């Protein structure tokens, strides 16, 4: 928990105490000062508290620990520690190519308009399935739609290592096909080992802990 989180919690506790004070000493609102206090305690400060809480919760929902807090995602978390350079999620995580504290969110957010909202909607569906649906086995978990190169190009696009890579310039039109998503990064047999949780039993792991 960060210092800002603690500050928000302290603020919310003070607001709750003020609301309780107005609730159980409502006679004080007969005086002018009491009316002002009631406006702050029952309207202005609660609105600010909920706003601050919403911001904190949204920030937390982007953390790796949040995504891996469900049992079904444990294997996907372990796949980030596989000691094998062909595991694309693992090499990104282990080499800080994505922020480790926000690893899942960085790659699985749709970098388009309303992408963050779509991610939250998908998250709500995950929660529904977790508690009211049939939970799939970890190796049966699939994306809702094929992985879009746009998410890779959010970081790799324009990078020299990407644009001048021999594998990306085999033919004159290849780079264009990649950037326009006609040739999928993860579905064209080039970077197709992503989490591969089905083969974790035979894998070696990097000795580090997940955030």
């Amino acid at each position, binding site marked *: 928990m960060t210092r800002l*989180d603690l500050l*928000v*919690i302290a603020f*919310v*506790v003070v*607001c*709750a*105490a003020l*609301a*309780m*004070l*107005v*609730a*159980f000493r*409502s*006679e004080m*609102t*007969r005086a002018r000062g009491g*009316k002002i206090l*009631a406006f702050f*305690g*029952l*309207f202005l400060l*609660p*609105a600010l*508290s*909920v706003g601050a*809480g*919403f911001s*904190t*919760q949204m920030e*937390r*929902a982007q*953390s790796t*620990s*949040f995504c891996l*807090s*469900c049992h079904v995602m444990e294997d996907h978390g372990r796949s980030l520690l596989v000691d094998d350079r062909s595991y694309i999620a693992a090499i990104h995580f282990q080499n800080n190519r994505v922020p480790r504290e926000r690893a899942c969110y960085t790659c699985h957010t749709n970098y388009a308009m309303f992408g963050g909202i779509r991610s939250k909607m998908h*998250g*709500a569906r*995950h*929660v529904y399935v*977790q508690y009211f649906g049939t939970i799939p086995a970890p190796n049966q978990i699939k994306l809702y739609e094929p992985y879009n190169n746009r998410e890779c190009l959010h970081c790799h696009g324009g990078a020299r290592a990407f644009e001048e890579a021999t594998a990306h310039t085999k033919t004159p039109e290849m780079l264009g096909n990649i950037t326009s998503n006609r040739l999928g990064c993860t579905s064209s047999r080039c970077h197709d080992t992503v989490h591969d949780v089905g083969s974790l039993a035979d894998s070696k792991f990097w000795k580090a802990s997940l955030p």
Partner: protein
Amino acid sequence: MTTRTGLERRLTKAGVLIASGLLLQVAASAFVHPLAFVAFLLAACPLVFAGMILFLTALVSPDGSPSR
């Protein structure tokens, strides 16, 4: 002991709703888990908003005018 007016009773209800919503928000922020997020969004926020709306409606209700 003074008799409480209708406005004061509504303010009490509003205060209790808001305080319980905010305390639930504090409890939800102790956990980093999707259920905590859902509890915040589907329970804490509605409680606080219901309290705020009750407060605002109490102000404009007929017996909400200040006594002279």
